[in-house]
């Protein structure tokens, strides 16, 4: 009976992706001004955040920027318990951690991001959350660390 061999292969790959005008503007506002911007479709009037150049529903180009608050409502959530590779580090993200689809106030789509909190009984669809910003921002969605539950004392305008 033949021994069954395996051929190992490891590689490190990296890419430099060209983005576009809407990414550059969104990131500039995020990083430099701690402002969140969405793009509005001229036909259906939906505001997309993150922004993209064309409304998929209407096939219409979007050029109208709309400011969106950094507070919002959780529309879906989960707590991840297993090691998932964090693409920003290349390493498994320490679990458990919360994730959510968050509809920011002023936007019609939801943003996929992290949610503070590990206890599913404390989380619910419809809860109000606000962004927690990194001190030093680099120009990426990860400049928001995660979203935390807003308690009653907090106003939407606090950054």
């Amino acid at each position, binding site marked *: 009976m033949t021994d*069954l061999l395996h051929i190992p292969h490891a590689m490190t790959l990296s890419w430099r992706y060209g983005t576009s005008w809407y990414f550059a503007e969104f990131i500039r506002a995020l990083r430099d001004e701690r402002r969140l911007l969405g793009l509005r479709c001229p036909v259906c009037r939906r505001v997309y955040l993150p922004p993209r150049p064309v409304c998929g529903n209407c096939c219409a180009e979007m050029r109208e920027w709309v400011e969106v608050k950094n507070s919002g409502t959780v529309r879906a959530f989960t*707590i991840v*318990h297993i090691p998932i590779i964090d693409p920003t580090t290349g390493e498994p993200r320490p679990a458990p951690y919360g994730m959510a689809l968050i509809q920011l106030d002023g936007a019609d789509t939801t943003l*996929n*991001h992290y949610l503070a909190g590990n206890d*599913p009984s404390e989380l619910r669809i419809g809860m109000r959350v606000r962004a927690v910003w990194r001190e030093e921002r680099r120009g990426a969605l990860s400049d928001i660390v995660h979203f935390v539950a807003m308690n009653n004392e907090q106003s939407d305008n606090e950054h």
Partner: protein
Amino acid sequence: MRRVAIIGTGQTKHGKARDDVNQAELAREATTRALADAGINRRDVDAVVLSNMELFEGRALPEMWVGEGAGGYLKPVTKIATGGTSGTSACIAGYHQCASGLFDVVLVIGWEKHSEGATQTGMALTDPLWDRNVASGAVGNFALSISQYVAERGVTPQQAAKVAVKARRNAAKNPYAHLQIGDITVEKVLESRMLADPVHRLDMCPQSDGACAVIYAAEDRAKKICQRPAWVRAAVTRHDQPYIGDLDRRLVTMRTLRDAAREAYERAGITEPLKELDVAEIYEPVSYAELAWYEALGFCAEGDAGRLIDDGVTEIEGELPVNPSGGVLSTNPVGASGVIRVAEAAMQVMGRAGDHQIPGARLALATGYGVYAWSDVIILSADEAE
């Protein structure tokens, strides 16, 4: 367009790790079985379509290597890579190649060897602008949508667990299936490790090594070669916007599956799917998804999926057996998973499904699911036309 039928299928024994064969040999195992099932040889095949997610095993141009295992030498070979729908998309591409009149006999094969690869890292290579900032993985993404589905439609973890149990008990009758855990119970599912709330480990599909092939033939060839082929009555695809946050409540609305099914039923002349279909092989990566698909496929009204599983309607002895093969929940080599749905649906209407044959099956549904919300719907019948 010509009428097209499936005249043969072939599968490997699917498992956690097929170390005895390399990828080309795995493909050959399924290919030779499909050729034998059809009663033809490699020379009779006019074109080959491959289904594989090359990033999962880190092989650029897998068609170059594996194509020869699929009998592709000196034949036109195409490769399709569309996430979970790769297999069903490849089956639809193969059907198109045959129906167009360009080719009379087309072989479609999907395969994957997850044991060799870095599937999770492949899933981490999502769009670089937005998604790559967040570590969700497949299960995290499903869990997000499931939280919405549960909130709106009120299915319980027990009902989802019943789907997981049904799949694995059915797999016990399928000699090719990967997971063989026929003694599974609802309790075992709910006690298994939590992956991402509310999805337990036993609610989720495995990662498998395996391959599956189907062979199409056009009208006259099909009738000449095969006594009881599986006629393609509909083959429909729908894709959707790419960002997860754009898809509203995707498991709840599942507009791609809904729309694809509507068109497929129309083409096949089906008005009451629950009554008229004899069997369904649907692509269910997680137990909750199968419940959502019952609604999207029109097997029941919105919010009624839980009742369907509670009443045993979709069990192997029920009114509409769903996934008598064990489904993706029991066997999941991603490039092959969609082809397996089509092959199993074909086996049913051809009367070749062995111990998991649904007696008298003549009309079967197969679906594919992939990326965030892409859907394929294929309807096969023992009857050539209405």
